């Protein structure tokens, strides 16, 4: 089952997601990148039905870009989160999207932030959040070890602790994870944690 989690640190926000694309008992792909770089300073980690996940996050990405083109100024993380929630809410009673999203971003004025947006258009600004079966393990790990103002090393250490716990305790645990980080220098890939390497696999 898909695992997505993230937390806010000192001057940055970090999100991690598993990288397996699964269809009933078959693993089609184990290096699928589920964390999209929304714009220069925002990350969207999404989990949910395969079509919805890609189509909805790309839709949000293009609309955020359009706003920037039209107005010459990028959206704040809060504005992007509220826009995303609004789109989910509008579609909810007609043609709902089954996507859960953790939106992490960095704004110059307000610093790093993390937004928890679930498939029925719930929106919360949080310090730490998680989706999927992995949340049963990662949430308590984060509750125990998290404190505000963590350094990058401390935060990555906590992320690794969560990944280890998921790998050892979840029955159909995904083997590989991707970690991305966003801070004042922008949104970028931080690391991959792979325990199963695809033979000569192409990156998504």
């Amino acid at each position, binding site marked *: 089952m898909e695992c997505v989690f993230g937390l806010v640190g000192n001057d940055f926000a970090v999100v991690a997601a598993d990288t397996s*694309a699964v*269809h009933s008992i078959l693993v*089609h*792909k184990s290096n699928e990148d589920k964390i999209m770089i929304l714009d220069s300073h925002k990350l969207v980690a999404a989990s949910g039905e*395969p079509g919805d996940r890609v*189509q909805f996050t790309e839709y949000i990405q293009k609309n955020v870009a359009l706003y920037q083109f039209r107005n010459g100024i990028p959206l704040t993380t809060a504005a992007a989160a509220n826009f995303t929630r609004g789109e989910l809410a509008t579609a909810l009673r007609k043609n709902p999207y089954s996507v859960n999203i953790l939106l992490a971003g960095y704004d110059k004025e307000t610093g790093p932030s993390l937004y928890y947006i679930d498939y029925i258009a719930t929106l919360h600004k949080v310090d730490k959040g998680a989706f999927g079966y992995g949340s049963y393990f990662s949430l308590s790990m984060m509750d125990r070890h998290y404190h505000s103002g963590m350094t990058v090393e401390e935060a990555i250490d906590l992320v690794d602790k969560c990944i280890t716990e998921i790998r050892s305790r979840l029955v159909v645990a995904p083997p590989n994870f991707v970690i991305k980080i966003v801070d004042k220098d922008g949104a970028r890939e931080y690391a991959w944690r792979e325990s199963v390497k695809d033979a000569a*696999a192409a990156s*998504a």
Partner: protein
Amino acid sequence: MKFDTSGLESAAPVWGAPSELVDGFSAAPSFEVPNTTDFDGFQKEAIQMVKPAKGTTTLAFIFKEGVIVAADSRASMGGYISSQSVKKIIEINPYMLGTMAGGAADCQFWHRNLGIKCRLHELANKRRISVTGASKLLANILYSYRGMGLSVGTMIAGWDETGPGLYYVDSEGGRLKGMRFSVGSGSPYAYGVLDNGYRYDMSVEEAAELARRAIYHATFRDGASGGVASVYFVGPSGWKKLSGDDVGELHYQYYPVMPSTVEQEMVEAAGA
């Protein structure tokens, strides 16, 4: 429950003026409803009837020389084998192939439609469409029909300016880029043989033999797969069909019958 349509009947005009303009205004807007007893449930029933369990084995993989695409050729309706000679590798255009798994009509129609869109792209942009673009076109179309009962599990394989390309696209709207895929009820069996024997630097013959073997093993174990194992190769100059072997014959090729030594011959029972 019987659907009550009395509320949709248009009210008769009060004054029977024969002019077309007036008739257009007077009729209340109404629409045709399906002629069925169970209005709320019939759609779900139709989808369940049409949605077969993708009884097939198809596979494709990228290697050093290009892309190999292979499939079986059996069509089954439940327990009945309706055909042993279905073409499951669809030629979209001279340098792109699509595989068929799921509803045969859905796959054939939408691949043909994709071929049309690819040709229109060529005419409008004076260059061939990339495999990325073609697969995205198909994925978007299938996504827009999501939930309406389409059953398509396909791989788009081709060669474009960036080299070999392989995408998996399905009717749930999923689209994955990868190096190796297998789709259908026989796919877990094929994956086992394919994953184990795969190396990036294989020759075309080795790769074709790997694909053929994987399809054979899937047809051996999966009842919904069988018939003929077709293998295609997509290279820089387009696709080429390499082989089409009956899997029954392949079986005896791989596992020839050995005359076994008889330990003890039976003798007739003495008397009754």
